[in-house]
């Protein structure tokens, strides 16, 4: 089984659109949406969920006010400011509580503090034509996104195994922190999607540094490249210096957002043939062409460079 993933560092560069197109072009694949707190891949891979499961992660504390002596030791020890005095009782703010258990360690009376399982969200499986989708919805104001990402990654691989599907396509979350790390494990290669803006270049560089850190092989695609051809050339030159192959450059096409708004993929008219061909070529090079672990120069200290 091959697992390929699309990341970008910067949000809104076109990760989800490309993953949906790639899944369509591959024919048979399990697509997995790892942007669990703002999941959009399901909008482009329509269908009914055939399976939906609650995702329990972590726990939350509650204080039994009848047996509590109100000494306040728990509130003092809590690092997350999750315990507050109402004027009459100490109460736990479930949104701030991380379930660490420090409060019950310092509480002089056992059984005052109890824990209950935390429903962190749901994960789902769906069939959309020949493509299977594993996606998730993190609960409102939940802090377990990394764990849920690991869960959907695991379920996607299991599903592919069970169905004899040899391709898993990962739609990565933005950024370079915890959810990205959770999405980055056990990958064959990644495509880093960028756009020709200073933010796009800056975020691409940090994303490639992370790929180097984890020893993951990467190639790059520049989306909407014709909006700034000069900056596109600078990005291409930078990629050459870093030893990262280019999988493609995709032009800006005003028909793309309109088709996406209608829930359709930009692989058909009125999208320009050149745009469609560029996406197809990008998929071919990403899945079969070169990729390399980035070789980034040492990061300059932040103080010494103009910010």
């Amino acid at each position, binding site marked *: 089984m091959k697992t390929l993933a699309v990341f970008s*560092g*910067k*949000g*809104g*560069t076109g990760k989800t659109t490309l993953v949906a197109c790639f899944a369509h072009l591959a024919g048979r694949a399990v697509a997995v949406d790892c*942007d*669990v*707190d*703002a*999941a*959009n891949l399901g*909008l482009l891979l329509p269908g009914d969920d055939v399976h939906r499961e609650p995702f329990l992660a972590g*726990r939350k504390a509650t204080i039994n006010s009848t047996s509590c002596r109100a000494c306040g030791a728990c509130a003092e*020890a809590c*690092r*997350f400011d999750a315990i507050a005095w109402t004027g009459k009782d100490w109460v736990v703010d479930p*949104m701030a509580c*991380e*379930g*660490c*258990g*420090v409060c019950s*360690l310092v509480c002089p009376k056992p059984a005052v503090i109890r824990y209950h399982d935390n429903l962190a969200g749901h994960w789902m499986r769906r069939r959309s034509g020949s493509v299977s989708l594993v996606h998730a919805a*993190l609960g*409102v*104001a*939940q*802090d377990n*996104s*990394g764990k849920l990402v690991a869960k959907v990654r695991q379920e996607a691989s299991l599903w592919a195994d069970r169905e004899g599907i040899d391709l898993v396509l990962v739609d990565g*979350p*933005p*950024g*370079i*922190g*915890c*959810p*990205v*790390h959770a999405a980055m494990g056990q990958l064959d290669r990644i495509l880093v999607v960028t756009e*020709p*803006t*200073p*933010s796009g270049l*800056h*975020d691409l560089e*940090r994303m490639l*540094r*992370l790929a180097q*850190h984890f020893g993951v092989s990467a190639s790059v695609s520049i989306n909407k490249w014709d*909006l*700034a051809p000069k900056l596109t050339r600078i990005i291409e030159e930078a990629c050459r210096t870093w030893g990262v192959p280019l999988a493609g450059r995709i032009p800006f096409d*005003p028909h793309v*957002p309109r088709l*996406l*708004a209608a829930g359709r993929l930009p692989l058909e008219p009125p999208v320009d043939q050149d745009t469609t061909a560029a996406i197809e070529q990008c998929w071919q090079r990403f899945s079969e062409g070169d990729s390399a672990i980035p070789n980034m120069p040492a*990061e300059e200290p*932040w*103080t010494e460079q*103009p*910010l």
Partner: protein
Amino acid sequence: MILSFASGKGGTGKTLLATNLAWMLSKRGPATYVDADVEEPNGHLFLKHKTARLERVAVALPKLQGSCTGCGVCQKVCAFHAILALKDRVMVFPELCHSCGACVIACPERALVETPHEIGSISRAHLGDLQLLSGRLDVGQARATPLVEAVVEAATREHEGELVIVDSPPGTSCSAMAAVRRADLVVLVTEPTPFGLNDLKLAVEMCRALKRDVVAVVNRSDLGDQEVALYLEREGIPTLGQLPFHRSIATAYAQGQLAVGRSAKLRTVLDAIIAYCDDRTFEGRTP
């Protein structure tokens, strides 16, 4: 007053609005721009300044300092599986540790102490009258949220009573929450597409769970449908501006420049945000 720019979806224009607004505000009084998108901070690319004071930010990690009997209590109390008790020592996994202190409290030998573990930096600079604070996570570090909290906390402490503009990370999970938790007003930046709508709804739910007031700005308002506008109306969320796709804004952005001097439309949106904030302050709803 703390004003946070947020959005569920990435790439909707948070940084564009936050940097330009901060720059405009600094022309009429003390204002601070806070880059809380610590995983991918971009504000400095538009608010260019030459020098900055740098502060390293660390979280606390347990470390063995004393004799370990291998009792395993630390491992047992750790809710995050971040510490492994071996025969006579412990192994700590920094990316899993939440710095809660449970292992240190529970160790019967008092053999664990907390030591700082650096995760990133806060830079302080100024551009004319505009104060800038930016958080930047070290590449390879997983825990962005403590750094988001640190940079927002520092800005609100050092610039209390002034206008503080927070540029938040995308999404609706812990790091995004940390950037809006203290906000007096959250400006949600969205776009009129099914993606924009889906993520806007999630961001609104997050803000309501945190009991924050929200207003919205619709970016690229001419490249989509009416659903976002209808949703905002139904939910009673004030829309402070519609910003159509405009080449002068896109070009300025692509060149790493502020767009406020080049686009009257952008200026109108920013003026509306300022007027809304002024009204709130006048009515005493905001400090």
